[in-house]
Structure formats: C-alpha cells, structure tokens
C-alpha cells in the first residue's frame, strides 16, 4: 500500500527543483495550502502496460503537485462505441488500479444509457456490492437526456452517489449521441434529488455555465479544456464556488494545466479550497460514509 502524508508531499514539492526560480517555488507554496482531490482521471495516455503500472505513474505525477486523491474512471482504451463486455473490462481495470493505491484513489463506474439493463447490473457489481463510489464519466453513444438514462439515475439516487456526465458544445457539431449541458439540465430537472456534474462544462464554458446556472443540482467540472483565463472566475460568479469542481482529465490533459485554472484564478482562497476538493468530498460524503471509507 502506498502511503502519502503531507510531509511526503511537502518534501517532494521542495525537492528536485530547489534551484528553480522563485516563481516556481511560490507556485508550490500556493499548492500546499489546499487539500486537492481530482474528480476526473483516466488511465488512457498514461505510460505503463497494466492498470497498476499506470496508476503508479499517475500517483507519482500527482505527488509532485500535492494532489491527495484521484477519482478514476474509464478510458484505458479509446473505443468510442463500447460493448457491455468492454464496459466490464474498463471497470475491472479501474478497480485493479484503485486496489494498488486504495488510500489515494476511488473508482467511478462506467455505464451507458445505450445499455440500461446491463448498466444496472454493472452498477450493482461495482458500486452497490463493490468498491466504487460514483457513476461516470458517462459518455458513450446516447445523450443523458434519453429515457434510457432513467435506470442509471435511479441507481445513483439509491446510493446517493453523483453522476459525472461528459458534455461538449463543439462549434463544428458534437459526435452522434454526445451529450451537451442542455442534456444534463434536462435529466437533472427530472431528478432534483440526484447530484450531477456537468463534465467539461460543455468545453465552451461561457455558454455551458449559463446553461446549467439555474439547475442547482448540477455542478460544473473544469476539466479537459485549455486553461483559458476567466473560466473559474465566471463559474464562481454565476454558480457560486460550491458548484465548481476541479478535475484534470489526465492522462490526456495534465494535472497541472487544470489545477492552474483554480490556483491562478482571482477568487478567494476559501473558494479555491472548495473547488480543489471540498465540494467533491461533500458530494461523495454519503457513499464514503456508507462504505466506511475515510474522506
């Protein structure tokens, strides 16, 4: 079992680049102030031949930025139209990876409204009867506003787990079946008791934030887009810091580029604390409590 404590993190941050510029050290000082949980991690594009090797590599990078906990989901393979068998394989890989570092990562189950019956079975296997703590990133083949999403949402409600729903608003048009923030709002309005995370906030965040603004059970995930200045400030202004969540979308993105969105934002430290981990811990609190995990 890999153990990280704050002293280890501080040491790793202080070492290595001791002679680098004062600016770099100042950035490290800023990172140290916060308990960072990353809501959006994948094993794809990470070096390593097995889930365990990739997870070990991810934790090494996370340590350099003082990131304490990773929420890991699908993405080991890049199949855009997975079959139930592939969903199962992806979830198995995530569980293997998490078992390697159980004090550093949680798993999130990969389901799809394209396979509603299978999804319920897989939820039961991985979350109800297994170690996973949330649903998503859901992204394959059918938008989340479809009626076939209902059994998945009912699963979430039954265990009080959040749903992390992939969204984009591509100016050239989304992929067939790819959800938008409008889809998240549609399903979230039908289930105000369930917490949804609008993953990527549509990518086009200036539109995505406005779309989800009035739907209070939808939070904004800042992961997986360019670190364009103003994103986090607008999200905090329009949604409140309680509805903004740090995620990176590693391995395709870096922990750093996405955490920099929060650390570089002109917002109070109290808001950064919520975004970098406090909000995710709050969303996961019921299931972590139910499973006896330490949050």
């Amino acid at each position, binding site marked *: 079992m890999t153990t990280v404590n704050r002293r280890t993190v501080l040491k790793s*941050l202080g070492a*290595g*680049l*001791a*002679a*680098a*510029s*004062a*600016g*770099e050290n*100042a*950035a*490290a000082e*800023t*990172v140290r102030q916060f308990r960072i949980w990353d809501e959006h991690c994948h094993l794809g*594009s*990470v070096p390593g031949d097995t889930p365990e090797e990739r997870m070990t*590599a*991810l934790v*090494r*990078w996370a340590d*350099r*930025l003082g990131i304490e906990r990773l929420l890991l989901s699908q993405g080991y393979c890049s199949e855009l139209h997975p079959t139930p068998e592939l969903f199962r394989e992806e979830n198995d890989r995530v569980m293997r990876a998490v078992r390697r570092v159980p004090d550093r990562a949680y798993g999130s189950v990969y389901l799809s409204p394209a396979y509603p019956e299978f999804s319920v079975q897989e939820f039961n296997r991985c979350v109800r009867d297994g170690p996973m703590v949330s649903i998503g990133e859901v992204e394959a083949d059918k938008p989340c506003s479809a009626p076939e999403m209902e059994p998945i949402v009912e699963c979430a409600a039954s265990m009080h787990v959040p749903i992390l729903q992939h969204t*984009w*608003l*591509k*100016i*050239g048009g989304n992929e067939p079946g790819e959800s938008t923030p409008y889809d998240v709002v549609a399903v979230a309005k039908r289930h105000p008791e369930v917490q949804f995370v609008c993953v990527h906030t549509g*990518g*086009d*965040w200036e539109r995505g934030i406005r779309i989800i603004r009035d739907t209070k059970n939808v939070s904004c995930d800042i992961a997986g*887009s*360019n*670190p*364009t*200045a*103003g994103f986090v400030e607008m999200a905090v202004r329009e949604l409140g810091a309680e509805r903004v969540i740090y995620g*990176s979308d*590693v*391995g*395709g*993105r*870096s*922990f*750093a*580029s*996405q*955490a*920099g*969105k929060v*650390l*570089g*934002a*002109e917002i109070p430290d109290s808001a950064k604390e919520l975004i970098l981990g406090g909000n995710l811990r709050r969303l996961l609190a019921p299931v972590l409590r139910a499973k006896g995990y330490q949050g």
Partner: protein
Amino acid sequence: MIDVNVSLSRWPLRRLVGDEPQELVSQLRKRSVTQAWAGTFDGVLHKDLGSANERLASDCRRHGDGMLVPFGSVNPRLPDWQEDVRRCQELYHMPGIRLHPNYHDYGLDDPVFGELLHAATARRMIVQIAVSMEDERTQHRLMRVPDVDIARLAERIQNEPEARVVVLNFNPLHELEMARKLTATGRVYFDTSMVESVGGVARLARETSVRQVVFGSHYPLFYFESALLKVREGGFTEADARAVLEENARRLLGAWRT
C-alpha cells in the same frame, strides 16, 4: 524566468486580468518573470500593423523597465509587408516577429511564407509562429480559424540554415515524429503553453531536445499558473528545469544579439 509567449493589448472576445500593460507587468513580476517576449493581440486581426507594432514597442519601452521584449506582427498578405519587417528591426529594435498564418490566411507551404522567413532570417530575427490562439472547438461562431499546419515547416527550414523559429501554442506530442524532425534541424524550438497530457512537458523534452523547449504561458489569455505547474509536474532535474524556464530562451536571444 523567461516567458517567450505573452501578449499585450486586448483579446477581441474577452477582457482578461493583465490586458493592460502596467497590470501585465505587475502580474508577471509577482510570478518572478524577469523577461517576457511580448506580441500583441492587435496583430491577429488589425490591418494597420504599423500602428499595432508602434504601440507594442512603446508599451514595452514604457512598462516593466526592460522586462518586456517586443515581437512585432507581420502579415505577408498585406501590401509592402517588408516595410513592417524593416521597422520592427531598425526602428523598434525588436529581436523577432510573431506570425499568425491562420488568421492571416496563408499556409507554411505558401511561397510568401518562404519570402518572409528568408527576410526575417536575413535580419537575424527570431520568427515565432503561433499555431493557434484558442481551441478550434470552442471558437466564436463568426471567428472560426483552423490551426496552422506546420508539417511543411521542416522543408522551409532546410532552405534557411540560419533560421531560428519558435513554434507557439501547439502540442507537439500529437505529432511527435514531425516534432523530432523539426528539432533535429537545430533551428526550431517549441513553447510549452499548449503542451498537454500528464507529464507532457518533460516528455516533450525527452522525446525531442531539452535544449529546444522553452517556457511559454500564453498569458494573459491562459492562466499563468497552468504553464508553471506543468514544468513542476514534469519532475525535471534542476539543470533541465533551468534550461526550459530560462536558459534556452536566453541562449536563443543571445544568438540574435551577437
């Protein structure tokens, strides 16, 4: 620390913290930047580039006590662009120019790019090529501009042995073979502003040449901290971190000055 990729003036689609020169200097100083190579957002869409470059030179002179090093804009689709190159060097003493081929509607296979590269190189100027300014997928509906295709750069560079090119706002890890080919010429550098994937900056340095990766933030359009933390995430040795954060850019600029 030297940042080879900042911009003055206003991004047309958004107000930014740091889009006034005094504020930009103050923000960079807070982050311990000692030198910043500054282009101008005006160079993207303005047609009167003479005026844009004059303002850039003036702002760099008036703010930052020498921290800001101006890189003027040249659009070879404009009549008499050669005069802009001349002014950048002779009038404003700029060490280089920043190009936006996609916004200015030419490709690197276009003969006019070859002429511009040659003209700048003959003046021993550094040529920065901005591959993009923002994600193609999230551009304004009325301002959709594809990324610059740099596949033809290697060919162009072969004809210009003295050229020094810095490719900005690009993720070379997506086209690693081409990146290797370009760095192998010894004439092409990549900035870090849009290098992505976990540990990506270190991987780029490992896969190409640590001597040809230079720190660039794309500030103020991007959060500065994102660029800085990517270097930390890479787990560089002290020597390699210094190379990326400062020494490579200093050497490049030094070569121009000598």
